[in-house]
């Protein structure tokens, strides 16, 4: 296949990934690596490098709106970025020494986990909630605007959330994903933060986390410019369209279809990893 045709197909595929990722809130990165390895037969090291770069683009693009609306908890994000960047550097170094088929298998399991996380029903606890000393010392408790007015909330179990974020960072560096599902889990279930705040703050953190591992990937030659070009442009365009369509469509049906695609790709990744094809 010529580079021109290959790039155009990749552009179309990445647009679709970015579009679905933004519609469902899962992020396009999560299906980019399976798309590149399973459909386009790209070496998984190039694929994770590429997907990592794409996650920086989409998270930065989406963060603009949320930060301006004042939903993102910037202090919480900054504080937890200590954990995620440490984890991300460790994960990126780990990626260099991990056999590629093992990376594929771990990736498959994380896909399944992300899919389950996105399907789960969300129950919001009562706010402001429990006051923790550490959260007060770090000025993490905050408020955010909703339709019903401004809601104040407290952040619980700061240490537990911090550790979980470090783990999310390792996976992000190892697999080249934003690992948004894990970040939301840490903030939602452990730190008891409102859903809207945890998703936007997690998105805010993805860019810095990914940059930390991207620096290592870059030096190792994982990030190929010719391959990343159509992917970055496609994902950005797709995410942009997706974020403007969201208001009109119901989204529930699309989410279900997207989750089926993810589960199918997860099984393929694990199967190919076990067989040593990747």
């Amino acid at each position, binding site marked *: *296949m*010529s*580079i*021109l*045709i*290959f*790039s155009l197909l990749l552009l179309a595929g990445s647009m679709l990934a970015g579009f679905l990722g933004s519609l469902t809130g899962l992020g396009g990165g999560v299906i980019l690596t399976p798309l590149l390895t399973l459909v*386009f*037969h*790209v*070496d998984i090291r*190039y694929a994770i490098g590429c997907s990592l*770069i794409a996650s*920086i*683009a989409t*998270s*930065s*693009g989406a*963060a*603009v*709106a949320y*930060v*301006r609306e*004042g939903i*993102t908890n*910037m*202090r919480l994000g*900054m*504080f937890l*970025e*200590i954990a995620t*960047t440490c984890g*991300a*550097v460790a994960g*990126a*170094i780990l990626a*260099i020494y991990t056999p590629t088929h093992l990376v594929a298998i771990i990736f498959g399991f994380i896909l399944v986990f992300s899919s389950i996380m996105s399907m789960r029903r969300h129950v919001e606890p009562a706010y402001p909630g429990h006051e923790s000393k550490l959260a007060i010392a*770090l*000025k993490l408790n905050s408020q955010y605007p909703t339709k019903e007015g401004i809601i104040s909330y407290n952040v619980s179990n700061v240490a537990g959330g911090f550790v979980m974020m470090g783990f999310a960072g390792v996976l992000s560096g190892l697999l080249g994903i934003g690992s948004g599902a894990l970040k939301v889990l840490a903030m939602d279930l452990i730190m008891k933060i409102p859903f809207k705040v945890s998703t936007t703050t997690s998105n805010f953190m993805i*860019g*810095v986390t*990914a*940059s*930390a591992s991207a*620096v290592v990937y*870059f*030096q*190792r*030659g994982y*990030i*190929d*410019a*010719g*391959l*990343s*070009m*159509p992917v*970055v*442009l496609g994902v*950005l365009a797709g995410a942009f369209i997706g974020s403007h369509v969201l208001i009109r469509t119901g989204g529930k049906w699309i989410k279900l279809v997207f989750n089926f695609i993810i589960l199918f790709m997860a099984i393929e990744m694990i199967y190919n990893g076990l067989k040593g094809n990747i």
Partner: protein
Amino acid sequence: MKNLFSKLTDSSIQSLIGYILRIGVLLSSGIVLFGGLIYLSRHGYSLADYKVFHDESARYADISKLVPAALSFHGRDIMQLGLIVLIATPIARVLFSALGFLLEKDYLYVGICLLVLAIIGFSMLNYIAG
């Protein structure tokens, strides 16, 4: 009154950060697109080969060599430069947050921002990547 003042500065940091992120993404995708068009016009009909991983780690380890290379209109190098701008965007965001917190006299968070920058700086050391 003090509380009101700190809220005001918080929201101005927020709009500054939003601005930096937007500029970074637009600038990098513009450079990548420009380089991509040159790259495709020159190499579009070559064979695509990403099935096998080639270790080209040495090629771009030195950023100072990349800028002159990109200026001589090599599509690949221009795209590579655009990707570096993209990677640098969130890092610039942290740097400007540090400045914002400094203006707010929130020294705890100035320290936290600098710590995050130090971790990223550590990952830039060449020997880390082996």
